[in-house]
């Protein structure tokens, strides 16, 4: 079992190194990830939202519905913790 785990780990590492060999180099300004959608945010956030911080503009305006979901996830985790450890827990 331990041998299998070690083989799986090394295989996973090889897979990651092999998969990232096809990615653009770090710092490449022309990488596909930098050419789609993110220039829109950089160019339009100042005039459309009016906040200099682009991260805040995307988080709070363009993707605010997503952020609402994230906040709900955090809240749900808190409520679940209260239910797991709250009233009705056995004392011994």
């Amino acid at each position, binding site marked *: 079992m331990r041998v299998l785990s070690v083989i799986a780990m090394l295989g996973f590492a090889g897979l990651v190194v092999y998969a990232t060999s096809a990615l653009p180099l770090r710092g490449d300004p022309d990488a596909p990830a930098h050419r789609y959608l993110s220039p829109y945010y950089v160019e339009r956030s*100042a005039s*459309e*939202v*009016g*906040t*200099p*911080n682009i*991260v*805040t*503009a995307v*988080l*709070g*305006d363009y993707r*605010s*519905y997503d*952020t*609402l979901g994230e*906040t*709900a996830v*955090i*809240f749900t*985790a*808190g409520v679940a*913790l*209260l239910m797991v*450890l*709250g009233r009705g827990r056995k*004392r011994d």
Partner: protein
Amino acid sequence: MTDPHGSIIVNFIARIMMIPFIILYAFYVLVHGEAGPGGGFQAGAVLAAAVILSRLALGREQRIVSTGGLVILAVAGLLVYALTGVAPMFFGGEYLDYGRLPIPATDGIVFGRVTVRSIGVFAIELGVAMGVMGVLGAMFDYLTGAEWSGSDAG
């Protein structure tokens, strides 16, 4: 965990020198989150750090908010967010479409103006900060067992 540490040095440094400045810094991060690095999630985490430090160093009597207060804060944070989203719907907008809010845009210090949308963004950042602070602080209380009188909380 519920007893004060008992050391006057720990008590003084935590109460006078650290907690007020941590809270001040958290509000700076929250309010400044639109003009520079920062925002609701970070401010909530820093506020939760202040709450946890007050519990560790000062004990039950001098904590900033009670466990129930933190839970209410978490609920209120999510409500602030959701209601900020509902508000524009009364003025012909869509959910979370802050631009429709009937707030007059005034002159400001950031780019020489404050837009209605940035006010809406600040409102939801405030909700996020309240929610994160409440959830993380309440989690600390329940995990350390400070809710109960006993000390064997695992």
